């Protein structure tokens, strides 16, 4: 079936199977920044933004996104570079597999919550697992990024 949606503000139209998930659709069309970790709605590596909200693309059927706006890391390059800078400063970047999903979640966090507490930040990013670190460096990097005007 044909599904039309906006990928980083560009209208696209893909032929998808009724049981096909968005992560697979995007990766098969060259968007390899979308990482699939657990493929079980748990690790958050596949997170992207749908109409501005972070969601796990391994668990969204492609057929269900008709007319919606999908944002991958390519759609927020300038902000992604800022987030990457803070991750680097805090040594929060190890294997890097989870970084893309986490960066998109952090980008959404900044737009959704004003002056969040540490508890609110932790609650927001808890669905993005990092198997290399204990998320402490990421937390420091996120706080620094959130302080930036």
């Amino acid at each position, binding site marked *: *079936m044909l599904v039309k949606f906006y990928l980083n503000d560009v209208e696209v139209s893909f032929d998808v*199977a*009724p*049981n096909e*998930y968005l992560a697979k659709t995007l990766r098969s069309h060259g968007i390899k920044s979308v990482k699939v970790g657990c493929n*079980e*709605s*748990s690790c*958050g590596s596949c*997170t992207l933004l*749908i109409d501005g*909200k*972070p*969601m*796990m693309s391994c*668990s*969204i*059927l492609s*057929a*269900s996104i*008709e007319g919606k706006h999908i944002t991958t890391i390519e759609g927020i390059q300038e902000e992604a570079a800022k987030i990457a800078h803070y991750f680097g400063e805090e040594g929060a970047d190890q294997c890097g597999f989870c970084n893309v*999903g986490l960066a998109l*979640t952090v980008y*959404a966090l900044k737009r959704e919550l004003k002056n969040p507490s540490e508890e609110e930040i932790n*609650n*927001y*990013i*808890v*669905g*993005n*697992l990092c198997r290399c670190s204990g998320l402490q460096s990421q937390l420091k990097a996120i706080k620094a990024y959130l302080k930036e005007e």
Partner: protein
Amino acid sequence: MKVNEYYRPSSLEDAYHKLQEDPKNSLLAGGLWIKKMGLSVNCLIDLSTLGLNKISETKDEIIVGSMVTQRDFENSPIIKSLFNDSLAFAVREVMGVNFRNIATIGGSIMGRYTFSDVICGLLPYDVSLEFYPSQKMSLEDYLNYKGRLNAILVNIHIKKGNGKGYFKKVKTTALDFPILNVAISKVNGKYAVAVGSRPMVASLAHKAMDYLNKESKPDFNKAAELVLEELSCLDNMNASKEYRQDLTKVYVRRGLEEVSK
């Protein structure tokens, strides 16, 4: 998961007729659990375009559309204003934000999941479910209903009242299933106690509730014992029966103390 057809209905009536066409047709809410179950479905009927994603209120009740996401539910000022925010709290610890932006309140209820925070969190309140075609039943009646209800959940009605609520989810890690859920309310002077993930679907503890609502100065430890007399706990890989019983005693007492302040 095997799916032959993906269907976007134009109305509730259309969705209902499609559902009746084949017992292997299934409604799609958030779709998270359908994926995990690996079902073989003839036709998936997408409910996301039928306008069921709104929260509204009247003088007496709050009406939550079945397709409201868990995240929109927890962030709703209308929901937060009720029972010292305990309803929103019941949803806030379900996985992460990127999960709760997909999962719906209706999907969580209709699945009657044994581990559901949403069901346990709503159960001690006056909650009724509105289905298409015309049918209404209490949340408790739906949980006790045997078999598959061949209808579409449209709205969840939560009756307003004066009072407080308490919700406790016990889990080993942030993203784990609960070992136990305890939800307690005291609304308009009446106590209600629900315990879930024992590991069975949440139930109301009627014996304890009768005792609490009869006594002028109820003993909360006795009430916790009555909860355990009525609601059994079992072993599973997350926790033993005895551990769950001990947790139940402690959190029921603490919850009753909390809502009585």
